[in-house]
């Protein structure tokens, strides 16, 4: 954090409740952290994590991320764990000096930490001792440096923070690539030689999958010890079933999958680095581009996280508008997910187009309210951007009361009892409940495995505590249940929408004056919302300046993929396509 925070004493977290228990158990190894949570010494971290999971009952590790405190000279890894019964997080942190940059891996306690630790290694350069597969995940192995470190600068680097001073008052246009010597968006370290570069990504991948070993000559050969008939097949990155540029490397025994490893990052743009250069408000339209099907609820998650730091709440009407938009988004997303699941099953585009028809009608409403169909940029801190007319509400009601119930009912009649769908989906890609929790899966994937965990109920945000709705849950954890749960959730969303549209009051839509350069009090906040694809979290560290010091996104699609290998084992290649479809990922969010 920057200097002024030192001068003013930073408040330490009070150790109450479970934190006090933790302190009592581990004594000096547990110290109160700044603002919230505790710092746990690295040598007891694993033991403490087990204690937190088993004794204190925080079985669900929601988020794991790292912050670079460059002035203080250490990295901090931040963990947010939750109880499945609901309630707030237990925040604990681990620290490591910047030149050591190693903390124990928690994959053995929470397998869901796997991808998140790899992400922290990739982007922040923190090694996780004991991680079974610590490779880069979003970037390639030859990448120079770890971009989220505060001293790393991107090729188009201009200034530490926006707004850039070159834009005004003497803003002579210059194209970004013209500022770079190569007239291209690349940056090479001085001693870099393209002939020497070695991209070991694939090699590491294949060795990790037990397929090859390195001979003394340096070549990759099949391991001598066992002669197998195993085969490595690459699906993607260009593959119609992968919902974008996404690659799955599968080891096959005959036609059966032995192991699958997802490879991602083809759409990576380091959203978080961009976010740390931006001012707070400027991040809002960028969140639209995470899960671009659900821009409204992404906006909501970010607004809630920043409002936590600001300590403000939007006026009533704005709260209702937010809920209305977020629930419409859920319907949009689930229609899309079901339509494309059917595509993956081979029912080429007829079901998808029937589903998208309804989506278009909802997008019409979004366009009128927000100005854009997909990149809505609708929420502001302490409110929403535009009010809606009575006519808008009337049309929304027409949809919610008449059109959508009929459409969902028709989709149900069209697909649910279809014998082919049942044959392809039932018992496929099963994820048992304990694994679903251990892998930190969220949203429909978690709830289809019999865990009724929904942030709207577990830790209500906005005004969700006022509405009557049920948390949908299904128990088989297979593809079929992940399909059914989306239908169930659409019905529940309609219930919420009916109540919200009937009760919405007149009045203001923005608390206070709308500002473009807000100053957020120094602090840390984790805001999370139940996005259609699962729990979307924003971890924000503010140092009191107009730009976030750290801006991290817990992307549900990304973390849900941790369980993909587990779901696919023992199935056939054709099933992988369906299983991936049932997780419902969006690469804009996975790759960030």
């Amino acid at each position, binding site marked *: 954090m920057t200097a002024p925070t030192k001068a003013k004493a930073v408040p330490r977290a009070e150790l109450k409740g479970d934190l006090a228990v933790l302190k009592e158990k581990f004594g000096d190894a547990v110290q109160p952290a700044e603002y919230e949570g505790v710092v746990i010494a690295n040598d007891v971290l694993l033991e403490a994590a087990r204690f937190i999971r088993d004794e204190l009952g925080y079985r669900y590790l929601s988020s794991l991320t790292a912050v670079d405190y460059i002035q203080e000279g250490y990295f901090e890894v931040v963990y947010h764990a939750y109880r499945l019964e609901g309630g707030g997080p237990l925040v604990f942190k681990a620290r490591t000096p910047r030149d050591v940059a190693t903390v124990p891996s928690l994959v053995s306690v929470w397998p869901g930490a796997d991808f998140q630790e790899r992400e922290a290694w990739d982007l922040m350069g923190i090694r996780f001792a004991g991680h079974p597969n610590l490779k880069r995940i979003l970037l390639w192995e030859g990448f120079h440096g770890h971009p989220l470190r505060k001293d790393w600068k991107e090729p188009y680097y201009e200034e530490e923070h*926006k*707004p*850039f001073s*070159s*834009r*005004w*008052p*003497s*803003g*002579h*246009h210059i*194209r970004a690539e013209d500022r770079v010597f190569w007239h291209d968006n690349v940056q090479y370290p001085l001693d870099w030689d393209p002939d020497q570069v070695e991209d070991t990504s694939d090699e590491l991948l294949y060795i990790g999958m037990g397929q090859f070993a390195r001979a003394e000559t340096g070549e990759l050969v099949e391991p001598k010890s066992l002669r197998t008939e195993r085969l490595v097949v690459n699906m993607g990155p260009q593959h119609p079933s992968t919902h974008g540029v996404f690659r799955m490397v599968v080891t096959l025994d005959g036609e059966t999958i032995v192991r699958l490893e997802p490879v991602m990052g083809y759409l990576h743009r380091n959203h978080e680095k961009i976010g740390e250069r*931006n*001012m707070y*408000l*400027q*991040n*809002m*339209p*960028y969140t639209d581009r995470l899960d671009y099907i659900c821009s409204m609820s992404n906006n909501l998650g970010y607004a809630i996280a920043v409002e936590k730091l600001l300590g403000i709440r939007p006026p009533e009407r704005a709260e209702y508008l937010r809920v209305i938009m977020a629930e419409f988004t859920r319907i949009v997303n689930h229609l899309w997910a079901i339509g494309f699941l059917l595509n993956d099953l081979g029912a080429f585009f*007829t079901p998808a187009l*029937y589903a998208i*028809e309804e989506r*278009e*009608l909802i997008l*019409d409403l979004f*366009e*009128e*309210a*927000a*100005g*854009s169909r997909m*990149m809505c*940029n609708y929420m502001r801190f302490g409110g929403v*951007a*535009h009010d809606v007319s009575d006519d808008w509400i009337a*049309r929304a009601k*027409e*949809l919610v009361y*008449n*059109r959508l119930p009929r459409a969902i009912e*028709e989709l149900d*009649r*069209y*697909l*649910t*009892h*279809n*014998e*082919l*769908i*049942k044959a392809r989906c039932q018992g496929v890609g099963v994820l048992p409940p304990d694994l679903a929790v251990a892998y930190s899966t969220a949203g429909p994937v978690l709830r289809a495995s019999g865990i009724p965990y929904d942030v709207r109920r577990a830790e209500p945000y906005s005004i969700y505590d006022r509405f009557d709705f049920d948390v949908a849950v299904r128990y088989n954890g297979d593809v079929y249940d992940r399909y059914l749960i989306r239908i169930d959730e659409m019905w529940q969303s309609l219930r919420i929408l009916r109540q919200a549209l009937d009760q919405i009051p007149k009045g203001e839509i923005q608390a206070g004056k*709308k500002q*473009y*350069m807000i100053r957020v009090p120094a602090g840390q906040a984790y805001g999370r919302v139940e996005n259609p694809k699962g729990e979307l979290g924003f971890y924000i560290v503010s140092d009191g300046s107009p730009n976030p010091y750290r801006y991290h996104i817990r992307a549900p699609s990304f973390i849900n993929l941790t369980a993909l290998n587990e779901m696919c084992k023992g199935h056939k290649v054709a099933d992988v396509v369906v299983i991936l479809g049932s997780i419902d990922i969006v690469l804009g969010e996975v790759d960030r």
Partner: protein
Amino acid sequence: MIYGLGILKGLGVTLKHFIYSYIEDVRYLFEGGRYQPRHLPARQGPRARGVFTVQYPKEKLPLPENFRYIPFLVYDTQENKIKCTSCGICAKVCPPQCIWIVRGTDPSTGRPKPEPEAFYIDATICMSCGFCAEFCPFDAIKMDHNYELSSYERYESLLFDLPRLLKPDTYHAQIHPSDWARELAEKEAEKAKKGEKAAAHTSA
């Protein structure tokens, strides 16, 4: 349960969609055909059945007032001047920083004057977020409705300079009727306020 009943039921849904498209055709037959512009709202409305597609570019969906695409600068046709005062707020708030403004200077005094000397928006970078229009204190920059901007070249033709950005306020009034009405009302109120002040001044 008979095996295959689910499939048959599902096919029934497809058949229904198929038949509806013809029923609708017959219905529109007596009203000049499906592709009359006046039918567009009904065909795209919440009661639409059958074929749901729009024949773009022959047909275009009407755009709501809030619709936003690359901004333009408003030219005040009554007072014959550019409304922008080159205050720089839009350049600061722009998330991808795609606005470049050269503040005007008065050649006789060398002091800044409230009119931009140059104004660029790099349309290849603009994310059409609408913040510039939202936060401009002078109603000088507005979001456009023209989304057909494809070009054969991505450098010069997509770097919008001042002449290309300027559009008359009559155009703004036409695409943003309620926003324009608000502006007029605010102007009126200000005038009335000034008049009141002046009146108070003379009476005092």
